[in-house]
């Protein structure tokens, strides 16, 4: 590609990550069709899509943090907390649902600000800081529920099971959220500055951007997205436990990695993350439908993650050049 045709910044429509994950997802659905036909049954797809939607939204949050060179391990605690708030606070009473949603959002902002303060302002290592916040959030979960699950309110469950044009409502919410977050990051000036800070903080600082605000702000937006994902999750699962977030920690990071966003920060592939969430969810159903044992299922999922990481981080060209026989010059024996 000649240099002058490369668009400025990262406005390219199809990044490497997006292409890769889109091809992989199409390939997976093809494999599902060929080898595990039952995983494409209407009933299974209708179960898988809402979970994929919640994971996609949580993955978007994680992507924002990773774009700032961070990582958010408090997704587990935060997610669990928002799930229990929107189930236990109303405790079956539809009229209290709205208040519960408001409390969950407030809690998300508070949790995000703690992370943002520790990482953006105090310059703590994000792994340590968010691990600490995670423990705090789980403390709040246990204090609030004593670990006891509550059945989802009927009105919320209605959202999770509703079909619009034969597609579950959460899928529409995930698509809309992905488009909105992508538009804000890629098309608005604050969004461009956000990406710039992640790519090179020093350069951003010298060009007069108040970088701390963006570094810390990523965690607040991330928690808000986890909160939305948690609300969807609570609407899908009839009686969520107090530990639902645990099931989102590794997959949310995996979605980011498979989507091609570098863990070192910088450009984020938000759409690719959302598609990677679909990939991971279908992979779950694919291996379930294959009927392999639980051990194999776990291995397949781990292998997918490893392949994703390897795809983007290993310099395959360099390895190719190092292969014997491909060496341009051979070293003479001494």
């Amino acid at each position, binding site marked *: 590609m000649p240099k002058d045709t490369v668009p400025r910044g990262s406005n390219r429509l199809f990044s490497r990550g997006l292409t890769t994950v889109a091809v992989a997802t199409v390939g997976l659905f093809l494999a599902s069709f060929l080898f595990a036909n*039952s*995983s494409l*049954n*209407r*009933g*299974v797809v*209708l*179960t*898988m899509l809402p*979970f994929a939607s919640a994971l996609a939204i949580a993955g978007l949050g994680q992507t924002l943090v990773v774009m700032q060179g961070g990582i958010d391990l408090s997704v587990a605690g935060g997610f669990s907390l928002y799930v229990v708030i929107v189930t236990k606070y109303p*405790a079956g009473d539809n009229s209290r649902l709205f208040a519960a949603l408001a409390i969950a959002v407030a809690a998300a902002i508070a949790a995000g600000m703690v992370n943002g303060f520790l990482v953006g302002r105090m310059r703590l290592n994000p792994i340590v800081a968010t691990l600490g916040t995670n423990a705090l959030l789980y403390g709040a979960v*246990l204090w609030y529920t*004593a*670990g*006891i*699950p*509550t*059945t989802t309110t009927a009105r919320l469950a209605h959202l999770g*099971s509703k079909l619009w044009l034969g597609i579950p409502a959460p899928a529409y919410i995930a698509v809309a959220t992905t488009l909105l977050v992508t538009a804000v990051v890629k098309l608005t000036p604050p969004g461009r500055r956000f990406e710039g800070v992640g790519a090179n903080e020093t350069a951003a600082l010298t060009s007069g951007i108040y970088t701390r605000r963006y570094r810390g702000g990523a965690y607040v937006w991330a928690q808000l997205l986890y909160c939305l994902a948690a609300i969807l*999750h609570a609407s*899908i*699962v*009839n*009686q*969520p*436990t*107090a530990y*639902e977030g645990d*099931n989102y920690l590794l997959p949310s990071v995996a979605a980011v990695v498979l989507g091609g966003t570098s863990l070192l920060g910088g450009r984020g592939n938000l759409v690719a993350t959302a598609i990677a969430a679909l990939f991971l969810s279908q992979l*779950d*159903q694919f291996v*379930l*439908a294959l*009927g392999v*044992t*639980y*051990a194999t299922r776990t291995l397949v999922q781990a292998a997918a993650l490893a392949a994703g990481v390897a795809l983007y981080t290993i310099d395959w060209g360099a390895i190719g050049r190092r292969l014997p026989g491909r060496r341009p010059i051979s070293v003479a024996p001494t």
Partner: protein
Amino acid sequence: MRDRRKGALLVFAVVSGAVLLAAATSSARTAAVPSWCGAKKITLGLTDGFGGNSWRLVTTASARDEAKKCPSVTSLTYADGQGNTQKAISDIQGMVAKGVNALVVFPDAGKAILPALRSAYKQGVVTVPYRVTPGGKAGVDYNVFIDTNFSKAGEAWGKWILRVLPKGGNVLMLSGPKGNSQGVDENKGLHKILDPSHKYTFIGEKPFEVTNWDPALTQKVLSADIAKYPKIDVIVSDFGPSLVGALPEFTKSGRKIPALATSDGNVLGCFWKTHHAANPTFKLFTVSTQNDHARLAIDWAVALATGGKKPPTTHFPAPSFEDSTTGKPHPVECYPNLPGDIYLSAELSPKVQAKLVKK
């Protein structure tokens, strides 16, 4: 006039006499000390490896309720290990240091707890682990282990399946984490009853589909199985309430909910009540979730420490609870106004449980 007054006095005397008599008998009834409660005054400790769910809350409350029946127990201290083995061990050591006379332990961490149990036992504390085996030997490492035979639950399910599906069929079993001993034993009991007839096919992963007792995973696993197996005649699960979110997958796929052999829970009973009319194949059988296992452990600990009479057995039974086809021992029960996470098979009343869970 005078006679009337006399008559009134007589009536008064009779009534008050009757009241007194009733009061005396009722107080005699409440004061009836169980045989396992001896005369020696003791303090009692109760430690849990993990206390954070409704089943544990009800179980702990059952243990407290049982201890209250014995006036010789002057105090009961409880500690929750919160899923942390280190804490569970130091809880036991702490209880011993405090000088409890008897200690009832739910050793979730299994053999890791054994040294702490042994040291408590060697220091003269009556030590009674229950439900999860800590290894070791009674009389060497602790006084007595109060177990339950999970394969009996499997046998009960198997016998019910023989009765409601006499022509045979496809059996799908779901349990918790891979290889958990409860699920493995239940599966053995199930095979013991069903295999001789050669009419039942076990489908899905062997010995059981792994759900980690997690409702979200249960939902995914069940929807995959529904798509894969066009014919599922009965589902066997050792955690009935976690199926409530997953069973509607049958309806979504345009199929009827099959028969279900599982453990009880209010939420499940209520689910059956609302769905069985539209799903004629949805027959329900439950065994008790065994919250009262803790009561037997308390009985033993108190009997040994106070010098009371030992209970006749160290094995807690797996009693059947509900059967939608016969109504015996109980018809399916549902308290729609009480929380879903209460266990109607427990001795503790539903209202008391509801208060615990709602707190």
